[in-house]
C-alpha cells in the first residue's frame, strides 16, 4: 500500500489543483508513469507516480486544490495483500470548536467586549484564562502600549554625545541653547553648562535664578531617570565610632588647626577601601551591562547654600593618605560652593557618598546617580547606648546606609559592603 501525494514541484509551490486524473481506480500504474495533470500558480504540469501497483482509490476530485503533501490516491503495490481500510479522511476545515471558558472568564469577556471565539486559550487543555481575556482587552496601537523609546519626545536638537554627557552630568538639555550644526546642542554646550571657569566669561551669562531653576530641573531629570531605570534596594546599619573618634581626637590633638582631620575623611576612605572587597558597588552601568571600575573616584555630595546639590568626585580615594584626602575634600567643597569644578570631577565618580547627617538627620536613603550603581549615606554622629562585650556604654554611633542597584548586586553583597566599612573604621590607624 502506498500513497500518491501532491508533489512539490518547486520551493515556491504550496498547493496544487488536480486538473485531470489520467488514471482511475483499478488501473495499473508504473513507477515514473504520468497519472495526473496538476495546475499550480505557475503552470500546468503532468505529474508522475513513484510507486508501481494498482490505483485503489482517488481521494481528491478534479478541480480540487490541496496543499503539497496531501494524499491524492492510494496505490496497492503488487506485493501487498488485502486492501486495508482507508484511513479516515482528514477533519474538514470548518469553524473551530468553541473554546473552553469558565463562567468568571466569560463574564469578564462580556464586560471587556472580547470575542471569546477568536481567542486561543493558554490554560490547561486550551482553556481560556483570565489573562488571555485581559490581554485581548488591552487596547493595541495606542500610546500606552508602546515602549517609551518609541514615543516621540520633543526637545532641542542635540548630538548623541551631547545627550550622553547631559545624562551623565545631570544637565537638562532643554535648558540649553545649541551652538552646533543646525543649532544642535553639542558637547561644548553641555560642558559649559556644568563648568563655569573663573577665567572665562561664559558665552551667555545666565541669571542666578535661571541657574538655580536649571539646576533644580537637572537634578529632577537625573533623579527621575535614576528612579525610573534603577531598581534600588536599601540597607542600613549602625556603626560604633568609638575607635575612630578616639583616634581622631588623639591625632588632632597633636596637630595645628590647619592640619586637623574631620570624621568625613575617615568615612570616605573606609568607603573607598571597602569597594575592593565588593567591587560590584563601584563602576558604571552602560548598555545594560555593568562595568566595574579599577579606580575608585568617590563622588561627594555637596549641598549648595543657594539650593541644590552636586556630587563631584575626588579621584583615587583609595590611594590617598588621610591628609591628602583632607586637602582634596577641603578644596573640592570650596570649589563646589563657588561653582568652579573640573568637568572630569563631574563626569566620572564611580560611587557617591552623602553626608547629610552633618545637617542633623540620622539616616539617609539616597538616590543613586546614574550611571553609578551605589550610594553610601552617613547620618549624624550621635551618642547612643551601645552594648559591647556584655557591657552597656555610651558610644558615638553613625547610621550608614547603602542604596544599590539590584541589577548589579543583591542585599547579601550590599550587607557585606556595609560590614566592610564598619570593619575598616574600627582600625582607623590603618586607613
Amino acid at each position, binding site marked *: 500500500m502506498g500513497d500518491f*501525494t501532491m*508533489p*512539490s*514541484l*518547486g*520551493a*515556491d*509551490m504550496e498547493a496544487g489543483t488536480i486538473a485531470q486524473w489520467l488514471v482511475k481506480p483499478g488501473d495499473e500504474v508504473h*513507477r*515514473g508513469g504520468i497519472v495526473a495533470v496538476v495546475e*499550480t500558480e*505557475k*503552470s*500546468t*504540469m*503532468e*505529474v*508522475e507516480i*513513484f510507486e508501481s501497483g494498482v490505483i485503489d482509490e482517488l481521494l481528491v476530485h478534479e478541480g480540487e486544490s490541496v496543499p*503539497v*503533501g496531501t494524499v491524492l490516491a492510494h496505490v496497492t503495490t503488487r506485493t501487498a495483500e488485502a486492501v486495508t481500510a482507508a484511513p479516515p479522511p482528514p477533519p474538514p476545515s470548518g469553524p473551530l470548536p468553541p473554546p473552553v471558558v469558565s463562567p468568571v472568564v466569560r463574564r469578564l469577556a462580556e464586560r471587556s467586549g472580547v470575542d471569546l471565539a477568536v481567542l486561543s486559550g493558554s490554560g490547561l487543555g486550551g482553556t481560556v484564562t483570565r489573562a488571555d481575556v485581559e490581554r485581548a482587552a488591552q487596547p493595541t496601537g495606542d500610546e500606552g502600549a508602546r515602549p517609551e523609546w518609541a514615543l516621540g519626545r520633543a526637545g532641542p536638537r542635540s548630538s548623541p554625545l551631547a545627550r550622553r554627557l547631559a545624562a551623565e552630568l545631570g544637565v537638562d538639555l532643554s535648558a540649553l541653547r545649541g551652538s552646533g550644526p543646525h543649532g544642535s546642542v553639542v558637547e561644548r554646550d553641555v560642558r559649559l553648562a556644568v563648568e563655569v571657569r573663573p577665567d572665562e566669561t561664559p558665552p551667555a551669562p545666565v541669571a542666578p535664578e535661571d541657574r538655580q531653576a536649571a539646576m533644580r530641573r537637572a537634578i529632577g531629570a537625573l533623579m527621575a531617570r535614576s528612579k525610573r531605570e534603577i531598581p534600588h534596594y536599601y540597607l542600613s546599619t549602625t556603626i560604633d565610632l568609638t575607635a575612630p573618634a578616639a583616634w581622631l581626637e588623639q591625632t588632632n590633638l597633636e596637630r595645628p588647626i590647619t592640619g586637623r582631620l574631620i570624621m568625613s575623611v575617615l568615612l570616605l576612605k573606609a568607603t573607598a577601601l571597602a569597594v575592593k572587597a565588593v567591587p560590584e558597588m563601584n563602576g558604571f552601568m552602560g548598555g545594560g551591562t555593568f562595568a566595574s571600575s579599577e579606580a575608585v573616584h568617590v563622588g561627594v555630595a555637596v549641598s549648595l547654600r543657594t539650593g541644590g546639590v552636586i556630587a563631584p568626585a575626588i579621584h583615587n580615594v583609595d590611594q590617598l593618605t588621610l591628609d591628602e584626602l583632607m586637602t582634596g575634600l577641603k578644596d573640592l567643597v570650596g570649589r563646589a560652593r563657588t561653582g568652579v569644578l573640573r568637568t572630569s570631577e563631574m563626569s566620572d565618580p564611580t560611587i557617591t557618598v552623602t553626608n547629610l547627617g552633618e545637617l542633623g538627620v540620622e539616616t539617609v536613603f539616597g538616590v543613586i546617580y546614574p550611571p553609578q550603581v551605589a550610594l553610601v549615606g552617613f547620618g549624624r554622629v550621635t551618642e547612643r547606648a551601645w552594648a559591647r562585650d556584655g557591657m552597656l556604654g555610651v558610644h558615638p554611633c553613625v547610621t550608614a546606609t547603602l542604596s544599590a542597584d539590584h541589577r548589579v548586586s543583591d542585599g547579601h553583597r550590599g550587607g557585606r559592603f556595609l560590614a566592610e566599612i564598619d570593619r575598616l573604621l574600627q582600625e582607623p590607624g590603618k586607613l
Partner: protein
Amino acid sequence: MTGATAARGGGAEPAGGPTGEKDHGIHLLQQMLRIRRFEERCAELYSHSLIRGFLHLDIGEEACAVGVIDTLSPDDAVVATYREHGHALARGISMRAAMAELEGKVEGCSRGRGGSMHLFDAATRFYGGNAIVGGGLPIAVGLALADHLQGRRVVTACFFGDGAVAEGEFHESMNLAALWHLPVLFCCENNLYAMGTALDRSESETDLSLKAASYRVPSWEVDGMDVLAVEDAARSAVETVRAGGGPHFLELRTYRFRAHSMYDPDRYRDKAEIEQWKQRDPIPLLAERLTASGVLTDGDLERIEGEVGAEVDDAVAFAEAGTYEATEDLERFVTSEPVRAGEAS
C-alpha cells in the same frame, strides 16, 4: 560503430577502435544506469521536498558524461555545468557524497553549501557545478594555462550546453584557448534546447561545430546517444590534446527526456519529438548491442540493476542520516581558513 561521428576542422579522424570488450561495455552500461537510477530517485525526493532549489536532471544524456569522462586519467580536470550529477558520478564522486549534498548535509561533497548545481570535489579534480551558462569555459582555459605553464601533460574537459554557445564567454574562451594552444577538450552537449528556447530560435548558425572550427579548433559532431561513439571520439581527441595538439571541440548531439528542471511544464517541446528521442535511449541502445553480441545476459542486467539499486538506497540512507552544518559555521570558507590541507592541485 562510430558512423555518427563527422570530423570538421584540422584534427585527425578519431579512430574507430574496438571498445566492446565485455567488461568495459558492462562498465559503461553500469555507469549510465547509476546516473539514471540516482536521478530518478532525486526526482522522487524532490517531490517530497527532501531536495530543494533547482534540480536539473541529466536523464537521456548519460552517454555524454560517461563516454567522455571514461577516457580521462585521474590527473585530468573536469569543469561541468549545473546539470552535472552524471558527470560527478562518472568522475568518481561517491553517490553518498552527491546525495548528501543534494539534501543539504555537511557530509555532501560541498558541505551543503552548493546543492544540486554546485557539486565540487578536489580529490577527482572536479571543478563544479557552474550555474552561470558559459561561466565555466574561461576557468577551463585557465586550468589548462596553468598546466601548460607548468609543463604538465594534462587535459581539462569542459562540458557546457548548446545555450552556452550564444554567450560571449564561449567565443572569448574558444579564441583564447586556440590562440595559446591550450590543452582543453570542449564538450558541447547539444540537447537542442537552451532551457525552453530551441536551437534554431537562438542561433543564426545551428551547426555548432562550425563555430568552433572558425576559431581553428578541430571539432567533431558525435552521436551523443551512443556511448561508444562518444567514447571513441573523446579518446581520440583526448590523446591529441594531451600530445600538445591544442584545444579540441566535440559537439555531442543528445536529448534530455525530462523537462529543463523540476518545475517546468515542458510546453515548448512536441510530445512526439520526445517519444522519438526516447527510442534512442542510450541505456537500452547499449544493452541491446551488448546482448546482441553475447556480452550481456539477462542475468547480468538483473545483477547490475540490483547493485545500482542498492547503491542508490545506501546513498539515500546515508544522506538522510547525515547532519547539517552548524549555523555558527555559516561564514566558514567565504575566505580560506588559516590552516589548509593544501592548495588545490
